């Protein structure tokens, strides 16, 4: 049986230094997967191979297989922009573009779809509602995205990602730069999004992984130490490293 999203024997290098070694995992459709592990364990690096964003930098390379519905994502003939539309990413810190809230959302949308003005407005509203930001910004859609608070900015970033209807949502510690209140809002949001999207999230926060995810992958030193459904991993960890890490938190 083939899986929705599958990683086979993935290795990753910064120059000659191996950062990921022999990564094998599967991710199911419409489930949330959390990647946890100490700093420098390769969590973010793994996430960055999924949309091939690492290719922006010289000397970074990946070998092995990443398959989405059986299609190899590391193949050289893949339309990289289409891939990044399908597998979209939200970063650690909020990154609003230097334009209005409205334009932040339509910027990528306009590129991927041919829409009329009213269709665009509808899509913007839809995305902002989905990202639970609509009520806070509906009266100031044309003010700068940077004028929002940190938590609102992050929801704006999620909204503009949702607007392009990705299949998979990659979240790289999306709440690490936010206060508890904003974090709570984003977590509620992820709970809602689970129903429609496949989410892969890197987090430092073990409670967050427990609260949100269906499956958890524990990484250390560029390898997957243990992976299981979240409940099992947190209640009956098998590997001593996992026990140690979870126990210490």
């Amino acid at each position: 049986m083939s899986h929705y999203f599958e990683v086979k024997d993935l290795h990753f290098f910064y120059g000659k230094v191996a950062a990921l070694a022999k990564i094998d995992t599967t991710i199911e459709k419409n489930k949330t997967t959390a990647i946890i592990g100490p700093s420098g364990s390769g969590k973010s690096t793994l996430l960055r191979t999924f949309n091939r964003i690492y290719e922006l930098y010289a000397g970074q390379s990946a070998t092995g297989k990443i398959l989405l519905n059986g299609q190899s994502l590391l193949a050289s003939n893949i339309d990289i922009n289409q891939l990044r539309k399908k597998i979209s990413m939200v970063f650690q810190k909020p990154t609003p573009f230097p334009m209005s809230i409205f334009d932040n959302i339509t910027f990528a949308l306009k590129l991927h779809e041919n829409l009329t003005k009213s269709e665009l407005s509808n899509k913007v509203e839809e995305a902002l509602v989905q990202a639970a930001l609509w009520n806070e910004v509906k009266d100031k859609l044309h003010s700068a995205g940077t004028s929002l608070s940190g938590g609102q900015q992050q929801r704006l970033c999620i909204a503009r990602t949702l607007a392009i209807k990705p299949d998979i949502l990659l979240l790289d510690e999306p709440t690490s730069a936010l206060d508890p209140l904003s974090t709570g809002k984003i977590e509620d949001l992820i709970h809602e999004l689970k129903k429609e999207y496949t989410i892969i999230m890197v987090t430092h926060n073990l409670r967050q992984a427990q609260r949100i995810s269906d499956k958890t992958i524990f990484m250390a030193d560029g390898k997957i130490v243990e992976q299981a459904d979240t409940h099992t991993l947190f209640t009956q960890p098998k590997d001593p490293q996992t026990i140690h890490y979870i126990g210490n938190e």
Partner: protein
Amino acid sequence: MSLLIKSSITRRIKNQLFTLFCWLTAIVSILVLLNILFTLLAKGLHSFNIEIFTHDTRNLGLRNAMIGSLMMTGIAIIVSAPIAILTATFLVESKKKSRLVTITRFTNDILLSTPSVIVGLFVYTIIVANTRFSGFAGIIALSIIAMPMITRASEDVLYLVSPMLKEAAIALGIPRWRVIIMITYRSAKTGLITAVILATARIMGESAPLLFTSAKNSFLSFDLTRPLESLPVMIFENAMQPYPNLQSLAWTAALMITVFVLLMNLSARWIARDKT
């Protein structure tokens, strides 16, 4: 205990001496600037009247010099700014730190520190000697001076754009060239405009590169294939004359350059102001 008190007293004295020293140096530099401005105003206003805008240099006006300066500076910036900003983009955005990047940056730095008189002589040898003194030759010389300045300043500004912001745009499937134009340039807008304005202000006052290229022309001319009057060259020429009225006109021309540069700075700030 006494040791502690003593050290705290010497520390306070040192601290205050240093603060005083900083104040004094700041006052000295401000005084120099004020002195220049005051002299410029006092001597420049002497010959300032409406006629400098309606008469040419041959009739003790500045019309042809102002128009020549504005034409040459304006075209030189229109030519050099895009090339310079694209060069800076290449330096910042190229994925591999290739040899071409190193060579380009090195060449640019050399060009940046080349004395402007040498640029003038270069354009004279290559172009003027084979054609004649012309506005075009002046534009080329000014462009060569402006280009490395804008490249350098733009490179610094473009480096400051957060890599995460660019990644965020690319992660939405937006092609790289679009990210550069819509995100990188936009975030760096204020800095890029400042870079261009500073270069404009600098070449507006350059006389050395124009002496051997656009030369001088005491009549009003819009013909770039012929010699063209400019404010700096006119100042240089007139300041050497023994006639007080010509010297006084040179002061007025100096005042005009300063006013132009000031206006440009103000308008640039206005254009680049954050609208939120």
